């Protein structure tokens, strides 16, 4: 079957198969993406990140339901870690979203990180495009449970929400660099637990110290995701940020930056593949390695020679 065409015609099976092709880098993945690309750029891409156990999946479930009530169709990409030892993974985010499974307007896909370290999987961006071309109005990307430095989500999403919970550390944690810098919106989940107000104060202090020059001060919303408390207000805040991105032109800026990064990635991958296929695979390269090892020549000169040959 013509997967891309079937996908554009609304086949869920084709969408599912397309994501598999993309993720496994099948031979047809590039041709599928080429055909889908003109149909992308319409969805609102919303990133959810935060530490393990913060309630990202539960909150995603609740937010998705609210968006469905507003008549929007939803795609969800939920990422969980791949074992660096076995290559296997337990993808368990769907457990919190079982009631969405049979909703015709929702499509959920779980992905393993497969070696990627930034909180996403390497093919997340292309999977988003497949859902975008399929016609989803809003696409959630739920990252793996992150620590402090997995910030790839900002490159993939229009709006990024950081979910935090009380009890994870004192205020010095809040002034460290990393995920606290990437939130457009903050959600304090499990706000019925002790320490939520204190976390609220600490986050506010952090934002007050840094955010004076910006035209958007990230709002902090307290929620209790498993009871649905605060979810409607949270959606309002998310929508306000999206509207802010549009009116200030930042949406275009962010998306241009994303396009640029993606193109550079494709270019670098292409060059990498070329090097593997044409240079390191040849006997000539092994000879260079031997020469460098014996100190007859240095690696910098060798690489210079190779590059000069390449770029002729």
């Amino acid at each position, binding site marked *: 079957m013509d997967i891309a065409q079937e996908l554009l015609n609304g086949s*869920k*099976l084709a969408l*599912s*198969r397309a*994501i*598999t092709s993309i993720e*496994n*880098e*099948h*031979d047809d993945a590039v041709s599928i993406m080429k055909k889908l690309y003109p149909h992308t750029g319409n969805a609102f891409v919303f990133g959810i990140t935060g530490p393990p156990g913060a309630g990202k999946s539960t909150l995603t479930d609740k937010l998705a339901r609210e968006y469905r009530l507003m008549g929007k169709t939803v795609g969800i990409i939920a990422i969980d870690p*791949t*074992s660096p030892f*076995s*290559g*296997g*993974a*337990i*993808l*368990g985010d*769907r*457990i919190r979203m*079982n009631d969405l*499974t*049979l909703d015709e307007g929702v*499509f*959920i*896909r*779980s992905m*393993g990180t*497969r070696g990627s370290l930034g909180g996403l999987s390497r093919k997340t961006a292309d999977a988003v495009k497949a859902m975008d071309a399929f016609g989803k109005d809003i696409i959630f990307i739920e990252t793996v449970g992150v620590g402090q430095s997995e910030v790839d989500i900002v490159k993939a999403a229009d709006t990024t929400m950081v979910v935090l919970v009380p009890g994870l550390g004192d205020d010095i944690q809040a002034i460290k660099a990393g995920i606290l810098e990437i939130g457009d919106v903050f959600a304090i989940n499990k706000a019925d637990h002790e320490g939520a107000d204190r976390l609220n104060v600490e986050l506010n202090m952090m934002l007050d110290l840094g955010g004076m020059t910006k035209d958007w001060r990230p709002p902090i919303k307290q929620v209790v995701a498993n009871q649905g408390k605060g979810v409607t207000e949270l959606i309002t805040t998310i929508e306000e940020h999206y509207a802010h991105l549009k009116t200030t032109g930042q949406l275009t800026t962010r998306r241009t930056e994303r396009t640029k990064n993606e193109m550079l990635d494709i270019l670098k991958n292409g060059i990498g593949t070329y090097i593997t296929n044409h240079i390191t695979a040849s006997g000539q390269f092994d000879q260079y390695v031997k020469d460098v090892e014996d100190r007859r020549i240095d690696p910098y000169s060798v690489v210079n020679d190779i590059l000069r040959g390449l770029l002729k």
Partner: protein
Amino acid sequence: MEKRIRVLVAKPGLDGHDRGAKVVARALRDAGFEVIYTGLRQTPEQIAEAALQEDVNVVAMSILSGAHAHIFPKVVNLLKGKGMDDVLVVGGGVIPESDIPALKAAGIAEVFTPGTTTGTIIDFIKANVK
């Protein structure tokens, strides 16, 4: 090109005994599979739809309530109806030997009863996945 076997592990029916399903999920993970674990009390419709969205190669169901004769074949039929006829469907749990031939005739590739080692399940999936 990279091929990773994706398995949906599901607990249909109303019993809450998911220890077995979790042990199997963990063993499959350690064997290098991507396991989508959907948790307890899944309807056949939910299982088939999740299998479609996740594009899994295998659906593995565990049931200890005695409803296997009804639920397993239903999942097979729903999968076929969605165009997922190349999915390997396996089952496990306390299932009487006398029920197994009918389940196999209904499209369940294999039924693993108590005492089965996780190695047996892994080997079966590797040998039979399409």
